């Protein structure tokens, strides 16, 4: 389990090599762990890989988010370069096994976060425009990751409130107080809405990282926090949401 947790998908051959066990023994163990719901198998034949059930795969987005220079890899199916492209992909959330009420809330929350990327970074992208938008379903949990290589929440809010001087308090203000980085426009309630949704019921969680700041909300917020804590520090913003499908 430890080996599988460290790798981004483990092949049986990796385990045979690492543990010096016979293929039969490894496959027996894997079958038992699959049966207990601790692992998930993806792919088939020689391309089969095993993952920890219920954990998202975030190595790719972490690499994109934390790249010092313009990221070399920008998968077109995960990057939304424009707001229209992001809006066009929001309905994917209707195919994840959520109830209609939960679809309504998740889509609205994810819509606020993704649109924030465009609202606050148009003309200020570090290099790659747009946001990373990825949905994963694993272990009866829906994980949604939205990341951008923008200017970050601190820079955006410090323009309207110069007393905000560090990333942690900027994130807290963003999620807990009505203050917009686009003043004098009347804005600033989107992330409060997202927080209300996440904390409004059990089995939900969210963490958001921007610069050196990191906040989490909801029952599963700590799980999201520990995933984002592994991301390299970057000026941009990354949000991870988890929603139970039970």
């Amino acid at each position: 389990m430890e080996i599988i947790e460290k790798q981004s998908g483990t092949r049986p051959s990796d385990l045979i090599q690492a543990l010096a066990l016979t293929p039969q023994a490894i496959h027996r163990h894997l079958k038992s762990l699959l049966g207990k719901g601790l692992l998930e198998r993806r792919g088939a034949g020689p391309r089969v890989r095993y993952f920890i059930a219920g954990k998202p795969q975030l190595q790719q987005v972490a690499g994109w988010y934390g790249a010092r220079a313009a990221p070399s890899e920008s998968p077109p199916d995960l990057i939304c370069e424009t707001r229209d492209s992001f809006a066009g992909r929001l309905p994917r959330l209707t195919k994840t096994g959520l109830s209609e009420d939960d679809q309504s809330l998740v889509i609205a929350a994810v819509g606020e976060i993704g649109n924030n990327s465009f609202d606050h970074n148009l003309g200020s992208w570090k290099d790659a425009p747009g946001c990373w938008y990825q949905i994963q379903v694993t272990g009866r949990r829906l994980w949604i990751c939205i990341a951008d290589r923008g200017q970050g929440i601190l820079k955006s809010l410090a323009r309207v409130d110069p007393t905000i001087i560090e990333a942690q308090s900027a994130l807290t203000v963003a999620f807990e107080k009505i203050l917009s980085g686009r003043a004098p426009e009347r804005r600033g309630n989107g992330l409060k809405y997202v927080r209300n949704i996440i904390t409004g019921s059990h089995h939900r969680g969210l963490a958001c990282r921007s610069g050196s700041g990191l906040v989490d909300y909801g029952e599963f917020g700590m799980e999201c926090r520990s995933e984002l804590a592994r991301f390299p520090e970057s000026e941009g913003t990354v949000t991870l949401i988890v929603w139970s499908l039970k």
Partner: protein
Amino acid sequence: MRVELKKYGQILTSRPAGREAALAMKATVKPADDETIELDFDGVLSVGPSWLDEVLASLRAEYGTDRVVCLPTRNPSVIESLRVVDAP
């Protein structure tokens, strides 16, 4: 006068989309002087507070706060959106 929001889409998020919807409503919705404008959320899957804020602010500025009414709905995203949009 009832405005069926499903005609503007099943998923209503983002301020630019809300502004555009409000402009379209003002161009087509022509209520009598004392008539209320009733926003009907039936058939809409999800509404974000940014979209709703733009629409309500624009319609209320044009017709007055009392004449713009959100019809009762069980859609949780609308209920939550109204909580933050109309928060004091």
